[in-house]
């Protein structure tokens, strides 16, 4: 079992516009300023298109960006 944080879509059921497949929570590495983290994001299982929900972008992600910038 992975300890990486898991972020689903804020609302609604989403599918990949290109592959027409429902999204799955898949581990994605995210990068910033020479650091990288694994997070589970809604992702197209076929083409890898990844969704970053607003609550994540303006919440935890912004917090971590600020921390890394001040590191």
């Amino acid at each position, binding site marked *: 079992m992975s300890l990486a944080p898991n972020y689903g879509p804020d609302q*609604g*059921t*989403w*599918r*990949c*516009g*290109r592959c027409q497949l429902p*999204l799955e929570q898949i581990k*994605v*590495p*995210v*990068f*910033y*300023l*020479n*650091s*990288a*983290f*694994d997070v589970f*994001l*809604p*992702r*197209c299982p076929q*083409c*890898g*298109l*990844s*969704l*970053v929900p*607003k609550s994540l*972008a*303006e919440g935890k*992600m*912004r917090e*971590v*960006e*600020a*921390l890394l*910038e*001040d*590191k």
Partner: protein
Amino acid sequence: MLDQDSLRAFESRCTQESPPRCRAACPFDLDCRTFLARMAEGKQDEARKLLDRHLPLPHVLVRLCDHPCENTCLRRDLGGSVALHGLELACLLNTDSQERLLPLPPKRYRMAIVGAGLAGLAAAWDLARKAYPVVLFHEGSIEDTLLIRFPQLRQCPSGKDFLAQDIGTLTRRKARFQRVDIDNGLLERLAAEFDSVLLDADAAAVLVPEESRVDASTLLWKDNICCAGWPGHTPTGHPLALPSRQAGQGRYAAQTMERLVAHISLTAERTKVQGPLRTEVSGITPVQRVEPGVITQDGEELFNSQEAVAEAGRCLQCECLICVRQCAYMQKFKGYPRLYARQAHNNAAIVKGLHTANSLVNGCALCGQCAELCPENFSMAELCLAAREDMVARGVMPPSAHEFALEDMENASGPECFLALPDPDMPDRPAWLFFPGCQLAASRGEQVKTLYDWLRATLNAKGLGVALMLSCCGMPARWAGRQRLFQEHMKRLHDSWKEMGRPRILTACASCLTALREGLPEAETFSVWEIMDGLDITSLLAESQANTATFASMPPVFSMHDPCNARYDAAWLASVRNLARKADAVVEDPPLSGATTACCGYGGLVWCAQSDTADAMAAHRAAQLPHPILASCIMCRDRLAASGKECWHLLDVLLPGMAQHSGNEPGPGLSARRANRASLRRRLLARTGAIVPEIAPPPCNLRIPQQLLTKLEKRHILLTDAESAVAGAEATSQWFENMDNGHRLGSWRPRNVTFWVEYSKEDGGYTLYDAWCHRMIVPGSGGQEAHEVIAAQQCCTDGGRRKQP
């Protein structure tokens, strides 16, 4: 990075940590301000702890002290000095000692004290407290020695024997007393037998030289012998009992004895080089001294608990904070400049760990108000700008702090907005160059055009050509600490200026004026107001005041707000007032104006790095101004108006027919500013007959409600960003579909930011519902394929860099 000497130089200019006048006057360094604060709170036990900590022989000294603190109290002319002496006495009578006598291992150096005067006893107290084995040699009884000199000790309030209490404590601290005959033989013996000897100049006067023969900076007489406690004299030569001075010398000599036995410098770091604490007392209401219900026969005031609280409450709790009171930024960080200098210095020294003072460094508007208000001219601007330049040079400036503002600068100076236009009628003789500034062009394009036309008409009549340049002045780079970028920008401006025949420059923006004077010193740069003030503006006013509807809606009285960059520009300050008067506007100067004016929050790129701090600055400034505001800088105007205060620009008064908005309306948003700059350039260029290329159509037809755009711009998402994101998502087919409502969600990463847009597709166009952005790189978003992004990264998910093959 500041070196230690520069840091100390900075620190020494802020006096907030300097002791208040009462403490500075106390030979025992009693923290009078905190003592009075505790007394005012009714916490006498807490106040007693301070007496126990700071005073030697607390009972004797409180009874005898000539309280020099009261002579220096700032309340003196505001109802009378706070009765520190009476309050100390009240505290002693109402409380028991709060000090626990802890047994300490005795130190190896033995100390001898000769004479049981106040100096000898005070020195014995301090040394015994630090566990030095102390022997006090005295003639006659200790009680007699003191009672002869200070007969008031016989009558202590409440019938307590203060002297016995203190001698008892001294005995419990293992000080030993020995009755002897005091003579030279004794001194020789003690000097040889003990590590250091103190002679009380009052009680052992036969052995002690005149005070002038002893080094006042150490009180060391010779070898290991110190002297202290000479009685004072009146100017007419009569002996004068100054108990605080005598006991204070005893303490000072005891410190010398400690240094002597430890073989360390007798003088280093003994006197603090620190200016006196400045305290502003103007506007403080006088409050009369509390008269206690009981006064003893010998005139001692005895405050009861209630009276003590009331009297201690009169203390002004002196502190400086002259700058902090006027600055929303400094208030936000809950400190004062001295502390900030230390934090900025430590921030730069951190190798591993969080640079917690980055936000302090990037939150300053660099406006210079603190330097003007501070009696010692402490400049947070100097400190923060140096720190920013250092962070940029070392590559540790947070990328998000100023990136957006620097992009805006690039846009305002780029091909879409830059314009260098010779005078159409006098292309070869441009005596002047009008440089309105990119924000005036962004906010008031039509006014810029009208003013330029009027300047040309007026100056052409005198045979002087007026060219025009639309560009950013480069100030954002300077504020961001990016010196190289600033210089590169100035080099480009210099080349354009040279090509135009080196005209004198006229600018309508105080920041441009500062930047051009610094970065383009070869050019003579003036404010447009100064030049207009020297010209006849009747024609300008007559034409524009014809629009009486707007003119009539102007407020009857304005509060003048000066831009912070013009605080020392006497010509700017005088000419804007003259011009307003000529336009029949009534202006009042607020208390903080001219050299002491405050920043609107635009300065120093705070609006970009910390918009909440910038908004607090605008609100703080707006609250200081009683009437609708008249500003001579467009960013001041737009920011103060956005804070909810009615605010007009000088051009609205000079050109009321041109005022398209009321003073209550905020200026254009960030997207509109960019579009307005480009539009002004095109309109001006088109007038010359030049062929202006068609504007490239937006990448998609996107509808955004104005309210949503305003919200997005607060997050630095522009209209063009949203349009590009929708177009990018559609072009690459990289979008998600919401099965519930059919909305699409796409992302686009044109630079260091990924923009997300939630939209719907209809009628050949798109409607935006929301947008957000982040700086992190997420593979499989932003228009790039996941595997390509992952392959391009130089780091792994364990946080470390990927090893080079």
